[in-house]
């Protein structure tokens, strides 16, 4: 069946994602925290960038995958895809929280406030709240198909926030750092660019790895629930 095939694929490839992610993050952290030079204006504080930016970017990557999986679910209605959606949402919330937290920590020294009402920060907070709403909606729905469909709908309509997060710094004059890599070229020092890139890809891959593992976990939970309900006919085919 589709589900077993899909899960088999995940099991086969997951370790490669895990290994590559580990290596990239290790090297990225070393070059970022130890060998790269401190920022001219911000000093050592800037090193939190190597955590903050990858987390924030990965949060957006995670939401994008949630969005794609949701469309996929509405199209194919495979329950394993719903497991992937659930996994992506949880991870997206995790990385969003990480981005908010590291951003706040960074904000205290640079803006002298944990929080400012700036477009990027706010749109990011909207994403956070949308994800909370998403997970909450799931807990309030018992019917499996209804839960999968309704949460997919929410994820799709919530996707409108993503371009706002990304482009808000361009559209509105804001406190937050503008895009460092954009159509207008790269505006970042080379010895910062290397760890930055490593970390971005590393955390992105880490997310992919976690998504694969978590999807399998949720799928197994679903099978277990099915087994408790004496319906093994679904998973083993």
């Amino acid at each position, binding site marked *: 069946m589709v589900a077993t095939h899909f899960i088999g694929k995940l099991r086969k490839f997951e370790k490669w994602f895990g290994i590559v992610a580990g290596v990239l993050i290790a090297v990225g952290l070393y070059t970022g925290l130890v060998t790269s030079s401190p920022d001219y204006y911000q000093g050592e504080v800037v090193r939190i960038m190597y955590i903050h930016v990858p987390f924030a970017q990965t949060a957006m990557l995670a939401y994008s995958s949630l969005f794609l999986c949701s469309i996929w679910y509405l199209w194919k*209605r495979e329950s394993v895809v719903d497991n992937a959606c659930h996994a992506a949402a949880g991870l997206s919330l995790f990385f969003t929280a990480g981005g908010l937290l590291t951003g706040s920590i960074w904000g205290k020294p640079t803006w002298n406030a944990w929080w400012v009402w700036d477009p990027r920060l706010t749109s990011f907070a909207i994403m956070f709240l949308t994800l909370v709403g998403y997970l909450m909606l799931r807990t309030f729905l*018992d019917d499996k198909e209804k839960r999968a469909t309704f949460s997919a709908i929410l994820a799709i309509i919530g996707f409108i926030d993503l371009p706002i997060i990304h482009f808000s710094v361009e559209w509105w004059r804001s406190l937050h750092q503008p895009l460092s890599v954009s159509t207008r070229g790269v505006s970042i020092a080379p010895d910062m660019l290397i760890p930055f890139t490593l970390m971005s890809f590393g955390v992105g891959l880490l997310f992919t790895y976690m998504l694969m593992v978590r999807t399998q976990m949720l799928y197994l939970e679903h099978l277990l629930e099915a087994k408790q*309900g*004496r*319906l093994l*006919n*679904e998973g083993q085919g």
Partner: protein
Amino acid sequence: MRFSQLSDMNAILGSSLSKSFQHYQVLKEVSVEIQQGECYALFGPNGAGKTTLLRIFATLHRPTSGRFEIMGMDGSRDRVKVRNTIYLIGHGSYLYDDLSVKENIQFAIGIRGWNPTDGEIKKALDQVGIGRFSRLRSRYLSAGMKKRLSIAKALLIRPKVLFLDEGYASLDERGVDMMNECIRTFTKAGTAVLMTTHDRGPTAEVAHRVGVLNRSALTEMTVKEMVAADALF
């Protein structure tokens, strides 16, 4: 004969339908065939899955596995076409409390793209015995009157396949007779009727075939066997 002419195609065909809710497998490989013009009665203990089966056929639930056809059209792929041919009288009355009986009928039929005349509406309401109440707001109808109103709608829609959940519930004795009369009207017109029920007496008067759903499996019998049986499950 009329019956054999129509019966070249099954009105309802379910094959190995299974359905499970979270913890609980309600239906397990249930198969059933119902011809046009036939009235099939479904018995079974509380919680056996009768309503669930009806709702699957009415395209309200998706089966966990298995497939079904209504009037030869696939129940998952051709949902919209299937929906053109079916009507379900279930627990919900599908009424708007603040519209009158007549307005409710106009809405329910009108939204399907057909506007019945006042005469047609009145005829259907009279047939189910609530013609007098056509201007009453449906908020003030009693449970039995709401059931009758649903039947009136079915009479106007003239579906190819009619699903009746707990057909006789909340009807008094005269209402039960009226219901049987209407079922006969439907089957004569070639409509397949699938109904769940707990009442053997009235069912025996109209059913052509009987199924008993118990422990997520379906056993079939004739009406005679049903009447004679000591206990059905």
